[in-house]
């Protein structure tokens, strides 16, 4: 049973691994340092968030900031001739690509901890010292159409994690109505999904059906899905998104996932970098609070853990909200979502899931962040007993160079029971002996991650 669980965990983690982060293709395009947009990548600073939110474009007219002039596929005069001429565009004068890798050395101070046990009681595990390789493509077709893609290579093979085209400024004022088409994480908050210093995703990914043993197509709303999203920034302070996504299904079905998000930023830099009223934006020391709410309704079809597996249909509804507060070099993030699933296995009752997370980080220097995060996950089967996991991750992240970084974390974890297939599918380590057993707070590991991008 444990081997099956481990296999499920590996499959799920690989399937949901998502490291959309710094893209040196942009550094080449604008001839600017990574730290123009990032603090310690992939974490975006307020300017980088504006750039991302604007569809990977600088505020104002994007081409004004481009220094590596692209090859023009026609002059602007062609626009005057349309429809008797092809609308002009550009291609990058160099391949708009970047590469990177990441991995970690894992130490188990307590080799009998859950994570140490999963590593066969190894004290030092270098198996994933180089875990993933990445190829990014990012750039613009013109001042309104942009693209972003990421291909990741790992032990599980190649995966196209992200591939999106952004049609910006479609209607009304600049940034008011944009269209994002492709495979990506939807916009559930005003900020990048990978905005954590100490974890892959700021908002934890919780594939509930996998926690109950789904052997195929585990669904988490904040994974990369194919879909179409309309988003925008109104009045420079309010942003929104509404999307329609394929989600995850074992067989071809009508895509039925829908979601929406609304956010508002008080103080600090504007969300889109426009309408500053002539007031300089102190991007490195802003004081701001941003509040977001979101909702997601999904239908997923998967094979459950029965033998033989039973095709199961789960309908989930998720509502949540986040708050980000920045006070100069200090940033605090907090968020919560509540999700109901009506059928996590063919025979199980419905479940209610609560995920809550907090992260605090302080930039001691522009290249060094210290802090930590807390993740709390509770799953309650209808009529059953709630199981919960608490993870505390103190950490530090440091840029050795603008494109090379180290992250040191020491995750601590405790669990009160566990879902049928354990906590691994949610990226958690605590492994109670059975669903009703507990794991006291234990140090799972000390991890030193190395990331590089070129």
């Amino acid at each position, binding site marked *: 049973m444990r081997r099956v669980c481990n296999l499920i965990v590996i499959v799920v983690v690989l399937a949901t691994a998502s490291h959309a982060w710094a893209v040196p293709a942009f550094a080449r395009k604008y001839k600017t340092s990574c730290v123009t947009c990032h603090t310690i990548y992939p974490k975006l600073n307020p300017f980088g968030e504006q750039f991302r939110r604007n569809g990977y474009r600088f505020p*104002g*007219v994007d081409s*004004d*900031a481009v*220094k590596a*002039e692209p090859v*023009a*596929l*026609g*002059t*602007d*005069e*062609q626009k*005057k*001739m349309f429809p008797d*001429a*092809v609308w*002009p565009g550009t291609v990058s004068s160099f391949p708009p690509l970047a590469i990177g890798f990441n991995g970690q050395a894992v130490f188990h101070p307590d080799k009998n901890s859950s994570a140490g046990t999963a590593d066969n009681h190894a004290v030092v595990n270098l198996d994933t010292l180089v875990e993933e390789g990445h190829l990014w493509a990012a750039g613009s077709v013109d001042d309104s159409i942009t693209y972003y893609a990421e291909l990741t290579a790992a032990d599980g093979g190649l995966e196209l994690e992200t591939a999106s085209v952004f049609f910006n400024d479609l209607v009304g004022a600049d940034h008011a109505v944009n269209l994002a088409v492709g495979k990506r994480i939807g916009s559930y908050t005003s900020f990048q999904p990978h905005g954590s210093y100490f974890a892959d995703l700021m908002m934890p990914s919780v594939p509930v059906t996998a926690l109950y043993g789904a052997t195929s197509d585990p669904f988490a709303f904040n994974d990369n899905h194919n879909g179409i999203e309309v988003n925008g920034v109104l009045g420079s302070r309010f942003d929104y998104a509404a999307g329609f996504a394929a989600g995850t299904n074992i067989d071809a079905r009508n895509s039925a996932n829908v979601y929406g998000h609304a956010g508002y930023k008080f103080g600090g830099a504007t969300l889109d970098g426009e309408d500053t009223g002539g007031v300089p934006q102190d991007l490195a020391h802003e004081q701001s609070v941003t509040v977001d709410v979101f909702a997601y309704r999904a239908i997923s079809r998967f094979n459950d853990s029965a033998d033989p597996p039973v095709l199961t249909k789960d309908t989930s509804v998720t509502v949540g909200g986040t708050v980000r507060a920045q006070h100069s070099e200090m940033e605090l993030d907090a968020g919560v979502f509540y999700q109901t699933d009506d059928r996590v296995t063919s025979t199980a009752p419905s479940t209610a899931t609560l995920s809550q997370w907090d992260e605090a980080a302080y930039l001691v220097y522009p290249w060094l962040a210290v802090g930590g995060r807390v993740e709390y996950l509770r799953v309650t089967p209808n009529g059953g007993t709630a199981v919960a996991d608490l993870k505390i991750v103190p950490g530090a992240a440091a840029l050795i160079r603008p494109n090379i970084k180290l992250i040191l974390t020491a995750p601590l974890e405790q669990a009160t029971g566990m879902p049928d297939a354990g906590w691994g599918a949610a990226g958690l380590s605590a492994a109670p002996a059975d669903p009703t057993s507990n794991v006291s707070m234990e140090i799972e590991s000390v991890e030193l991650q190395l990331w590089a991008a070129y």
Partner: protein
Amino acid sequence: MSISRSLVIAALLSSSLPAFADGKISGTVDAKPSKYLKDTIVYIKEVPSTKLAAKTFVVDQKGMAFVPHIVLIAVGDTVKFKNGDKFDHNVMSPDGGYDLGTWGGGGEKEHVFAKPGVFAQVCKIHPEMLAYVFVGQNRFAAVVDDNGSFTIDGVPAGSYELVVWNPKLKAASKNVTVVDKGAATVKLSLAR
């Protein structure tokens, strides 16, 4: 030089330029973003009582490019468009509303510019090709150099509106006064 020949030259000069036409306007133009400084033209909008003899200028299409990229002419002048490549080119202007057609290497066609303005010249076959024909009310115009500097020579004494044109950026015009045999210096700024 014979007296009659001198009289002819004097008559020609008097037909094109007012008296005391040896003033000068020079200056610099800066642009934000600076990469768009290229293709900036500075010109005197109107010189009273200008009467010009029509001229013919040549723009070649060579190596998949218009040469020169910018040609400065005056109302009534002709531009002869040549094809110096070994394959077909076209000449048309979305601003001027004319299409001279498509012709092969060695061929040429002419167009008379009857109205002032800046007329983009494109080749419908090769969308990346672009030239500008600047048509002034007079011939007092200059293209700025890589540093943004320009000089307009032979300006008659008087007060004028100095205008800047750029494909992407704008600048407010400036009034400038040129005294007899004098030099006026102007600084202009282009921005979105």
